[in-house]
């Protein structure tokens, strides 16, 4: 069975991941809505996952996929908890703009 990367090239996956990751960062910085920020974080996670899988194929090694598997589990847990926190913030403040979260101000 042929390695699919022969036709695509690992570097393209790297570029794609980088771009995706940067979009995630951009989203985090650009938006004030906590939910969108969350989504951006998910994009970043996926960028990394994608790279893992690409390299897993490149090295012909399943370990990379195991990592992705775990990272998905963590992402799921993170989103669940994060959204729960957002809900309770929304309940208390009536808004989920991260500008309102300034209780850590020095």
């Amino acid at each position, binding site marked *: *069975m042929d390695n699919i990367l022969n036709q695509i090239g690992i570097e393209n996956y790297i570029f794609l991941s980088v771009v995706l990751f940067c*979009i995630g960062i951009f989203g985090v910085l*650009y938006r004030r809505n906590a939910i969108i920020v969350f*989504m951006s974080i998910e994009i970043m996670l996926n960028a990394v996952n994608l790279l893992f899988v690409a390299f897993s194929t490149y090295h012909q090694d399943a370990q990379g996929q195991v990592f992705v598997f775990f990272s998905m589990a963590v*992402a*799921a847990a*993170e*989103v669940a908890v994060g959204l729960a926190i957002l809900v309770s913030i929304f309940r208390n403040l009536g808004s*989920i703009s991260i500008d309102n979260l300034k209780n850590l101000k020095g």
Partner: protein
Amino acid sequence: MIHIPDFAHATTVQVIFCFLAFITVITAFLTIFSRNPIHSAIYLVICFFSIAGHYLLLNAQFLAIVHIIVYSGAIMILFLFTIMLMNLNEQRDVHRPRITRLGAIVSFCLIVIVLITIFINSKPIVGEYDSTGEDFQSIKVLGKILLNEYMVPFEFASILLLVAMIGTVLLSKKEKLNK
């Protein structure tokens, strides 16, 4: 260095890759730029689907399925529910000062440039794309690795999910304020 796809003689795989990559990037952008959070969520779902497509392309069927189940199925539903629960719409979105946007764009450009420069600068030596012939990405192989070598982390992952579940329940329980 940069492998420029030769569109004239593009193979099917290359075409699929370009298409998927295009969708991924565009929807990711749209996720961020949509004013309505629901639209954002929908775009994100599309983005996730295209990533799953990538996985399939890379022959990681199991992960592709899991990805669709977990991300598009579980996580995105959670997002949508939350958005609906909060009744967020465009008006809810706060005004962003210009400086924030500028800062975001600057840092975006900066990090893209930095990462790509690093990548180019590091002069990666791409070896042969060898193939073992074994279908190492099959559930069979993955399952063996996961339950042998990664047994303990696997169990911890389950504990993590359990804890997250309990935490979520506790957090979203309505507190009795001022009583």
